[in-house]
């Protein structure tokens, strides 16, 4: 297998990790290795993990590192080929037929084709990164259809013929694992399970993302969030919630709210479920005090 030309200047996982850092994304060894292999081997990258661990952010950072546009295809139950590949502009086609009169026109010409994310990424593989987000939400027929796309990187449009990518496009898939993905899909991809970061790494992420936050605040928030994630909550706070909480508490503190109180009053940006809030409310004081210690 040959190394693809799409990662010029990035010759190792460490180099990719450094490059991702410039895009404000802290990747661990596992993710850097998986992403590097996916880019170098020209395979799609499948990222799985709990909601809020930074899967989509990783795709954005990869696009930024490569200097490419990110095309995002958000999956949902019932997504079909027309939403993912292409669609014809029917009203325009009809108008053209009526206006043509005796002349012959090609109603399947380029002007009538509406590009959807997958076709767009095939036609411009050098300048885009295709993010197929939350593939676990789409149904299995769509997954089967993706298999074909991901192995050959081609799409056939019956009226026009087959569109094949000259270069394999960079594709990142994410899944929250609300259902098991097909084995065949995992096989085609380079796979990485993103876990919640270590407390140390998460504190660095918080400081990097929210520059106004002091180190002690970041550490306290990360410790508290870590404890919250061990509770049986219906929605555990993700990394973005940790960043928001640190920022919100810092803001309240700057407006004159004292420390433990600033954390407590801004808990709403970390926990966004009324039941979770009620569940945790009794122990919140102790939890924050422990985390801030």
């Amino acid at each position, binding site marked *: *297998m040959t*190394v693809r030309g799409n990662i010029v200047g990035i010759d*190792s*996982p460490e180099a990719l990790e450094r490059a991702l850092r410039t895009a404000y994304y802290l990747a661990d*060894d*596992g993710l850097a*290795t*998986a992403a590097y*292999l*996916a880019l*170098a*081997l020209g*395979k799609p990258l*499948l990222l*799985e993990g*709990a*909601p809020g661990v930074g899967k989509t952010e990783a795709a954005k950072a990869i696009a930024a590192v490569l200097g490419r546009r990110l095309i995002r295809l958000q999956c*949902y*139950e*019932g*997504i*079909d080929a027309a939403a993912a590949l292409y669609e*014809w502009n*029917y*009203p325009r*086609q*009809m108008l053209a*037929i*009526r206006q*043509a009169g005796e002349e012959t026109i090609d*109603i399947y010409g380029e002007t009538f084709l509406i590009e959807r994310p997958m076709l767009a990424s095939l036609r411009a593989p050098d300048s885009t990164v295709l993010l197929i987000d939350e593939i676990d939400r789409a149904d299995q027929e769509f997954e089967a259809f993706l298999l074909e796309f991901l192995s050959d990187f081609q799409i056939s449009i019956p009226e026009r013929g087959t569109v094949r990518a000259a270069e394999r496009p960079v594709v990142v898939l994410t899944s*929250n*694992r*609300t*259902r098991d993905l097909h*084995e065949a899909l*995992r*096989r085609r*991809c*380079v*796979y*990485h*399970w993103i876990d919640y970061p270590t407390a140390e790494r998460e504190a660095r992420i918080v400081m990097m993302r929210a520059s106004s936050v002091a180190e002690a605040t970041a550490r306290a928030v990360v410790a508290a969030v870590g404890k919250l994630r061990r509770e*049986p*909550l*219906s*929605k*555990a706070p993700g990394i973005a919630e940790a960043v928001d909480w640190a920022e919100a508490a810092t803001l309240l503190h700057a407006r004159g709210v004292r420390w433990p109180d600033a954390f407590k009053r801004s808990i709403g940006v970390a926990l966004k479920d009324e*039941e979770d809030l009620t569940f945790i409310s009794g122990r919140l004081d102790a939890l924050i005090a422990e985390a801030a210690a």
Partner: protein
Amino acid sequence: MSDEPQLPRAAGVFVSFVALLRTNGFAVAPEQTTTFLAAIELLGPRSLEAIRQAGLATLAPPPERRATYDRLFDIHFLGSEAVDRAGAEDEEVVRLQEEGRGEDETLFADEAHESGLAAARAEALVERRFVPGATGDVLRKLSREAPARLPRRRGHRRRRARRGPWADLRRTLRESVRNDGEVLRLGRLKRRTRPRKILLLIDVSGSMKGRTDDNMKLAHALSHAAPNVEVFTFGTRLTRVTRALRLKRREQALFAAAHLVSDWDGGTRIGDALQAFLAVPRFGSYARGAAVVIVSDGLERGDPSALRDAVAKLSRRAWRLSWLTPLASGPTFQPQTEALIAIRRFVDDLVDGGSTAAIVSHVLSLGQRKAA
């Protein structure tokens, strides 16, 4: 001398690692082996950690089997036999079990009884045998009538219809091309309907002993009659048996399920089991918008408040929540136990679950019912 390309000797150790993974129940395709080798070549001779990462990325072991992967890796590349095993967990915690977790048996066939399974044995580990019963007719009725009678929801896709809110431009254009651009008839589209998810939670504790066989058979029949069925059993633990029940032959499926569930006929901590179910986002999302059917007598040994909170949460996620209890076989049934009284206001149906016929007739009636 053969002309077949020879595997470089250095690659042997990696290929044999893949073989080791396969004997331990990991599904690794040949193309993944190729990618694994390509990845190692690409990363260069660096460190064992890099090889471990390359394996994780290309051989894609499922996250819940990551620990086993790491152990096999250590054994193969480091020759380490000193392997940590997770000790028995706190007895008070309801443990989750998912299919495909039995893989450790291949690794530590001899020691398995001495370590992690000790706790399971304490929970009256009974291997269950399912006997053929006389519920065949009712289950055949279920299979026959389920496709037409199970609840459906409106999907996102559209289909042709005589009348509908959207114009079918694709079809209209195709027809108009035949008529020189003249639109003679405007095609219409409407939403397709799709089968609604069904989540079946079956109590397999001691107090439900008499019903467990039939309930499991019913779960198997339902799994095959409808496309989106998730089945869990609970007693002192929660076990996902969906994949086992997907086996077509009933005897095989029930045999597989019997091996997964380790708390047959034990105690009941329904509240904790349901809390555990909701605490795993992947499981909790099965309940969203689903027809949730709980088959249990509601005889809770634990604190009813845990049960009440869990049922309240489930009912908010579910499209409709039905609680089927054998206690409600009479028409004048009134909930007596503390637990059933506590959950009553959260369930949409509290009806008879005392016979296969009663459960089947309730399940088949779900399609006619509206979301509460």
